[in-house]
């Protein structure tokens, strides 16, 4: 279906006030506040759309945007309604919408009209009451004050005979980011797990609104360190989409190389983590070493071990010549050979398989219900990859199939990650052939008029990242919104550990390996 046809089709439904197509694949549907639930239900039924997120804009009123994605055709449909002080709760219609609603409620001070779950998510007890930092009247540079006396956060109470609760965190043992986990257990069996995050909330969306567009890529890259290149790519895609600019194929291929390099070292770290958590130290150390080799390769070609400040809008911020090309080929070959050997070794070790097989299972139905994306969803049998549904750069030529597994346990996630690494090796090699000649470093000044808006969709190592941006005055953004993959995927962990024993929790957690940083923002 073409997007124009879709537009006409939706017009026929009779609810919308105004429909607009922007940037080729974005459909903005303005509706009335009272119709939201009705129209959403009809659209879910009629067009096989997926709920992807919800965010708030502030003009004179507040505008709530509901992001729906069409994974088959690669369209984004945005339902918009104006409101003064309350959000229409979609809890019960769109899954996981409570997260988005609670976030909007905390940051903009809107009330959730009729939802069940109204607990604070971003605002912890230590925050001063009545502060809504993303509102325009909360000035940039101002800080949230902390209270001395705090009240307790209400965790769900699961009380059974012989059950007790184990609180873990926010500071964990080992080198891990902060988050609070509360297990309700009977003996060693986990009955319920509640995750509390947002310990790292720094207010990146507010910072993004106040930084010049030419420096903004640096902030984007620091939303999540491990997916720096993907976030840089999101920024480049966003700016190029808004200003309708297309870069040449060589630069596109170079970007794909960087994105896939990032995927390799992340997944290597992930599978190393899985091995560490089952105490299988030999492969863990070797995967760690390979990841180090890739990091060093990244440092050699971009000057940063995390590929920072390499992907910029309108061009490339690095030189890519024959020397770098040979370096990439050589290192990738070494790592690939070694990688296959070690993977073979792990798959032949019975004690390792004993631990990972049939552990931490997330069933397909649950994964679907939770809107999970990325590797963890593909391990549960959801065949969705942004690189296939919303192809960017040269992925249209590269990404032909999707790696997925059926059962959705730790072992399947391990396998999908391995398959992704193998794919990444392949894509890098193909992309290298697409680069014609040398790529030269070229930085172009970004200058965009106000009032333009657009979305960028990128597959980071964790899953589907959707970034919305609207430009404002003084070459700055008016609003930036990140729908990060971890935000929805985190709750999958809750279901994965149900019925498992407490010592298996770290293993399940590591196989998910969601980012706290991008979730908290």
């Amino acid at each position, binding site marked *: 279906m073409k997007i124009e046809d879709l537009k006409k089709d939706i017009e026929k439904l009779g609810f919308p006030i105004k429909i607009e197509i922007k940037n080729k694949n974005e459909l903005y549907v303005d509706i009335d506040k009272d119709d939201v639930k009705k129209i959403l239900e009809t659209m879910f039924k009629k067009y096989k759309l997926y709920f992807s997120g919800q965010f708030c804009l502030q003009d004179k009123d507040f505008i709530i945007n509901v992001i729906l994605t069409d994974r088959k055709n690669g369209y984004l449909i945005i339902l918009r309604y104006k409101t003064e002080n309350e959000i229409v709760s979609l809890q019960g219609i769109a899954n996981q919408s409570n997260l988005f609603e609670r976030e909007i409620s905390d940051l903009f001070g809107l009330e959730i009209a009729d939802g069940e779950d109204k607990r604070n998510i971003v605002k912890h007890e230590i925050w001063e009451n009545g502060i809504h930092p993303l509102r325009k009247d909360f000035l940039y540079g101002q800080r949230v004050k902390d209270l001395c006396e705090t009240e307790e956060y209400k965790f769900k109470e699961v009380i059974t005979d012989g059950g007790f609760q*184990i609180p*873990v965190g926010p500071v964990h043992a080992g080198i891990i980011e902060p988050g609070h986990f509360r297990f309700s257990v009977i003996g*060693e069996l986990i009955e319920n797990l509640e995750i509390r995050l947002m310990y790292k909330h720094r207010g990146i969306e507010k910072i993004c609104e106040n930084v010049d567009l030419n420096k903004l890529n640096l902030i984007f890259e620091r939303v999540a360190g491990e997916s720096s290149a993907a976030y840089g790519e999101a920024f480049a895609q966003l700016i190029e989409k808004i200003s309708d600019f297309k870069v040449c194929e060589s630069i596109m291929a170079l970007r794909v190389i960087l994105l896939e390099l990032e995927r390799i070292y992340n997944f290597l770290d992930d599978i190393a983590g899985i091995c560490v958590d089952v105490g299988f*130290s030999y492969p863990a*150390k070797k995967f760690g070493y390979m990841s180090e080799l890739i990091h060093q390769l990244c440092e050699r070609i971009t000057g940063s071990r995390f590929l920072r400040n390499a992907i910029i809008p309108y061009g490339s911020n690095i030189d890519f010549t024959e020397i770098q090309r040979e370096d990439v080929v050589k290192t990738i070959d070494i790592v690939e050979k070694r990688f296959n050997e070690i993977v073979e070794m792990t798959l032949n070790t019975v004690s390792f398989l*004993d*631990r990972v097989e049939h552990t931490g299972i997330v069933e397909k139905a649950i994964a679907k219900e939770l809107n999970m994306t990325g590797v963890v969803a593909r391990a549960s049998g959801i065949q969705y990859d942004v690189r296939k549904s919303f192809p960017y750069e040269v992925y249209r030529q590269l990404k032909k199939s999707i790696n997925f597994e059926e059962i959705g346990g730790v072992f399947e996630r391990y396998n999908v990650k391995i398959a992704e690494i193998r794919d990444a090796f392949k894509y890098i090699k193909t992309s290298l052939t697409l680069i014609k000649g040398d790529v030269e470093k070229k930085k172009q000044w970004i200058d965009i008029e106000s009032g333009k808006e657009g979305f960028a969709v990128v597959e980071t190592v964790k899953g589907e990242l959707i970034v919305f941006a609207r430009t404002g005055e003084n070459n700055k953004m008016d609003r930036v919104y990140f729908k990060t993959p971890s935000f929805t995927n985190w709750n999958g962990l809750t279901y994965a550990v149900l019925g498992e*024993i407490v010592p298996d929790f770290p293993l399940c957690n590591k196989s998910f390996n969601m980012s706290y940083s991008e979730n908290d923002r």
Partner: protein
Amino acid sequence: MIINIIQSMILIIAAPLFSGILKRIKAILRGYEGAPVLQPYFDIKKLLSKERVISKSSSFITTVGPIIILSAAILSAFLTPVFFTAGNELIGNMFILIFILSIIKFFNTLIGLDCACTFGGMGSSREMFIYMFAEPVVFLILAFVYFETKSFNIYKIAKLNAVRTDISSAHIVAAIAFLIWLIAENARMPVDNPETHLELTMVHEAMILDISGRDLAYIELASAIKLAIFLTIFINIFLPFGMAVSLSAAALIKAVILYLIKMLVFLLIIAIVEISIAKFRLFRVPELIAASFSFAIAAISMMYFS
């Protein structure tokens, strides 16, 4: 008598060295340069100069526990022959030795419970869970040793086995049973991962999460001594060939060298086992110990009915 004291002193002093060597072997097998073999000594020295932090909910157990643990470990070291045995029956009853060693375990679990932190409690309960299964195996092995040598005294057992030339198949099966028990008792892989940083999976480490400073040094030293004693008991019961039974210089030197070689070989075996397999699921551990149990039964029946 003096030689007994000297050999036990040597065991106590060398115990951290053995755990250092074990760590180093593991590092080398995994292809990197690990901590120096003397690292446990440096750690203990530093810990002794640090302040203690004791949480408010702790009782006197946390204060006296570590000292009791260390003294139990040292005491049991004095009840074990290392490389010399004359076969005197004054000290060295196996039951006394085993029970003194379980004092270490008992106080460790008490300390784990005492700090009132969830991880300590979890660790203690897991430790007792494993210990409960492992206990019958010890007595079966002791029974086997009694059937073999008609003695419960480790000095005598060591002496009798040291001069023995043939080994029966029952002896080997019993040795395997003992080795599995040793691994379970000392919280090594695959029962517990001593290198883990994850408090939720820990067994042994979880109990001492709340201990700091001097106390930690005592407990670390005690667990190093415990591992060394267990390995020494294993060597003395099942592989005592070459042990000095008389006080001649040549025999002693030979005994010391053989002892060190045997120790290193077992450290190497433990290291290889720890590297090449993943940790078991907690509820699979009883199966491992059940296997050890049936080894012990098999050994006894082979010994007694042949």
